[in-house]
């Protein structure tokens, strides 16, 4: 009686090992040769750790690094073009977590899918590592992640002794008015980058990625710095004019002390390999004295 379960266990073990071995062999053997990425931040990661030559298609919002500009476009988050994706004969497709339809279709087509969702700064680094491992660039991606971590730590160290500034980090608002303000809430990579750069998010206590504060809340919370990060919302020529929209709230310390900034560089809002660069740029805005 006792022999049968033992035999079963052994059999199960053998089967499992065999499966694991084929799985491992498959994974090892299948460093993808044709990658399609629907997520711009992850496209950047691929190029940053040297998997650029494997990329055969990108999303319609990709524009960095410059190499992607000549690659075929396959739609984006809301409008992925499955036909175009399949026509590129990919063996690895990077999807956003919510694109479950795409993932199902890819599974049916027996194409490996990598699922990703935006989260905090930690997840940028872990995604670099996971993605690197999945596309056969484990060592290079590890080096990249460490390099980014090192640069983030360096920025953090530079501002460590300075008092963190209470900052209102604005993503969007209506032109020339203070209506429709979207600001950073208590989590997300932008919130984390602000922390590295020596700022305290004004909405640290609100556990959401973004907040729509009323004028009253902004007045009451009195930010010391207002930093608008709006690559899409503001043309360079309008920065000065848009800064003055805040003059309507003269009691806010940031307004009183001329500490309202509008940054329009695209890389500041991409949760990819340039996060360290973004953290340093924001630290330079918040604490210029630390970089003299």
């Amino acid at each position, binding site marked *: 009686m006792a022999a049968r379960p033992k035999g079963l266990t052994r059999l199960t073990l053998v089967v499992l090992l065999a499966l694991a071995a084929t799985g491992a062999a498959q994974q090892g053997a299948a460093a993808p040769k044709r990658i399609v990425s629907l997520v711009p931040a992850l496209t950047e990661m691929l190029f940053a750790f040297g998997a650029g030559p494997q990329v055969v298609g990108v999303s319609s*919002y990709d524009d960095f690094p410059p190499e992607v500009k000549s690659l075929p476009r396959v739609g984006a*988050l*809301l*409008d992925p073009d499955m036909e175009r994706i399949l026509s590129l004969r990919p063996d690895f497709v990077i999807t956003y977590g919510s694109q479950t339809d795409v993932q199902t279709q890819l599974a049916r087509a027996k194409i490996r899918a990598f699922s990703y969702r935006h989260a905090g700064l930690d997840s940028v680094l872990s995604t670099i590592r996971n993605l690197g491992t999945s596309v056969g660039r484990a060592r290079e991606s590890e080096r990249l992640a460490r390099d980014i971590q090192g640069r983030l730590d360096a920025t953090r160290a530079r501002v460590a002794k300075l008092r963190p500034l209470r900052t209102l980090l604005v*993503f*969007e608002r*209506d*032109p*020339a*008015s*203070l*209506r*429709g303000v*979207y600001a950073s809430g208590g989590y997300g990579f932008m919130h984390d980058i602000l922390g590295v750069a020596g700022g305290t998010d004004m*909405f640290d206590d*609100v556990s*959401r990625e973004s*907040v*729509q*504060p*009323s*004028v*009253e*809340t902004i*007045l*009451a*919370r*009195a930010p010391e710095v207002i930093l608008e990060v709006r690559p*899409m*919302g*503001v*043309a360079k020529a*309008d920065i000065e*004019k*848009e800064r003055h929209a805040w003059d*309507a*709230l*003269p*009691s806010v310390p940031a307004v*009183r002390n001329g500490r309202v900034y509008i940054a329009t560089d695209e890389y500041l809002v991409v949760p990819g390999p340039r996060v360290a660069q973004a953290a340093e740029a924001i630290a330079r805005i918040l604490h210029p004295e630390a970089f003299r």
Partner: protein
Amino acid sequence: MSTLDSTVAVGASALTRPVRVRLALAVGGFGALAVATCLLAPLVGSTTISLARVFDRSIPFSENVDAQIFFIARMPRVLAGAVTGATLAAAGVVFQAMLRNPLATPFTLGVSAGASLGAMTAIIFGTAIAVGPLSIVPLASLLGAGLAAAIVYWLATLRDRAMSTTVLLLAGVTLNAFFSALILFLQYLTNFAEVYRAMRWIMGDLDVGSFQPILAVLPLVAIAFAMFALLPSSLNLLSVGSDAAAARGVNVARTQRLAFVSASLATAAAVSLAGPIGFIGIIVPHLVRLLVGVDHRVVLPASALFGAAFLVACDVGSRTILAPLEVPVGVITALLGGPFFLWLLVRKG
């Protein structure tokens, strides 16, 4: 004031007091409610402020946070709520009477969809264009509303000088659907940030941040209300039927045009100020009718006053319930207004 009007009004309502008395009672009651709401609302908010500090002249305004919260954040907001609420409620009364349809709202004839399309277009394509101190968004929504109203007006008067309510309704419903499709298409073409802002605009928002946006629409609102003042007696007869009204000496075509233009203008102004805030334009007029009867000479001013009080009160909820987050005011008007209206309906029945 002709005896004929009074007969119609009294015949339809259970109330038998003379119209002057009822008007005085209604305006007094709802007026007191509106004034009380507008006076109390600025005292409440997501933060606590000291009234003593607000009016303390020894602190310069540029450093007085409490005064700024009171005068820059709360007062314009309350005023925007009062103007929008009064305007949408009055426009609702006029549309319901003119279309002889209890389900009509200020948004039935496509004016709000036109306004939304205008606002969307501005949000998506017109980033950073400003006209003087005003943002392009309200201006574009005003233009969109005007375009929608013009199309509906043209269609409804194409064959006949008197407007056909059937054509009006069908044209309005079709235009609503058509503009909604255009809005969806625009949203589909654009990126997230804009889609999100556009969605938020549709939910309605009274946080105007200064008196300027209110002052900008006030002339339009004033013109609309001046036109409203000419309407009540004719609307009383028109709501019985256009033939009956014509038989009693009402210039039906002229009244319809006046009603359509004034209510569209009012709606356009309100929507460009605060976005398409729903439910006010249907619930407030019905509530008021349940309380004061159907005579438009009483219903119209009472609805405007009650609409102001109702929206200002809803906005107090919007800014305090989840503070520092806000609940879109349109969500509150629907959540409060719907059940309350049903309760009154059942109780009355």
